[in-house]
Every structure is written in structure tokens, then in C-alpha cells.
């Protein structure tokens, strides 16, 4: 079946503008994750959704970052008043529910954000 998809694939914006990034997880996957990856760096966890549970927002770097998920489908990550340091690749992943810590995360291709 289809994998995780993300849109847009690339986004260039001006400092101070808001951006919205979209993630479509694999159908049936109840868990959804957002990560940020700065150039040449590893992945930073941002937020995690699992079914109807309250999301784990512990990785969001500031209150300019927020994310929503509609049921067990699409998620949007919103960055308000973008700053140049927000420039990065934003990766979304989804996984099925199973024994904790053993689920493979399937990643989307990412959205490359450049804030000028």
C-alpha cells in the first residue's frame, strides 16, 4: 500500500510568516510522529500522537510550534512567526500499535523548509 506522504516537499518562506506542513500516515497506523532534522544533524523528536490519547508534545521547541491530528489520519504541523533557525527538514513517521518500543516507524520523504 501507499507509504507515508508529506506535503509540500519544499517550502520557502519569509521570516515572520506562518507555515503549515501536512502528513498523511499509512492507513491503519494509529501512531504518528513529527521530527525535525537540521542540516547534517540527527533527528529531533517534536511530537507524538497515539490514537485518542493526549499527544506527547515534549519535543516542541517553542510555543510557535503546534500540531494537530484528525482522528487517526492526517496531521498538520504549524510553525507560527517562522525564524531562520526553523530551517530544516521536517519528517513525519507512522507506526502500528504493538508491543511498546518494537514498532517500526515508517518515514515520509520530509518537507524541506527554508526561512529567508
Amino acid at each position: 500500500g501507499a507509504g507515508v506522504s508529506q506535503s509540500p516537499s519544499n517550502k520557502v518562506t519569509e521570516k515572520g510568516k506562518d507555515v503549515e506542513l501536512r502528513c498523511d500516515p499509512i492507513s491503519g497506523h494509529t501512531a504518528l510522529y513529527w521530527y525535525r532534522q537540521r542540516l547534517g544533524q540527527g533527528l529531533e523528536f517534536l511530537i507524538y500522537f497515539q490514537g485518542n490519547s493526549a499527544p506527547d508534545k515534549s519535543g516542541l521547541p517553542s510555543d510557535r510550534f503546534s500540531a494537530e491530528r484528525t482522528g487517526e489520519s492526517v496531521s498538520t504541523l504549524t510553525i507560527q512567526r517562522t525564524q531562520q533557525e526553523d530551517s530544516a527538514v521536517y519528517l513525519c513517521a507512522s507506526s502500528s500499535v504493538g508491543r511498546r518500543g518494537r514498532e517500526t516507524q515508517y518515514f515520509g520523504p520530509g518537507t524541506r523548509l527554508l526561512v529567508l
Partner: protein
Amino acid sequence: SQQGEEDPQALSIQEGENATMNCSYKTSINNLQWYRQNSGRGLVHLILIRSNEREKHSGRLRVTLDTSKKSSSLLITASRAADTASYFCATDDPTGGGNKLTFGTGTQLKVEL
């Protein structure tokens, strides 16, 4: 600081040689996973090793785990140019909720013809 840290940061080898990458982590884990990333885009899962396992194989991949040293290694045998990519280890958080993974900074592998 990163839960998982890989070394070396970069590795360049000739096709046919073996490539070994190491990962160290700081806290207890349930499992450790290795992922591969091409061209700064999406990651692909390679292999998962449980905390009670010491070694695991998958094709040309061999992963070891030493929980006493809080370290893991990924060995790619008979490397190919197509193995050129960044490799990341990822650990779970047994004390936290859900399946949040913490990724290391990665090893950039270049396999030259």
C-alpha cells in the same frame, strides 16, 4: 545531549570492504534500532535488536548490542556503492509513554567504486 551518538561521524571505504559503525547511548532501553537515510530525506528501518539480544543478522547486516557498555555496532559486509547513505541508531524510552525514539547524530558512509 543526544541519547544515541554514532561514531565515526563519517566513513569512506572501497566497494567490497566491510563498514562498521558504532552507537552509544546513555539510559536503559527496551530496544535499539538502526535506520538508513539517503540524501537527507526519509529514513528506512534496517533492523531492530532487543535489549536481551546480543547479536542479530539481516542479509549483509550484522548488529551487536552490549547493554553493559550501552553500545551497539552495525556491520555492513561486502559493501556496495548503493550502501552510500547516513546511518542512525535510535533508542526507545522505557520510562516514557508510547514509542518515542531518540536518534543519534548519524554516520555518513560513502562507498567508492
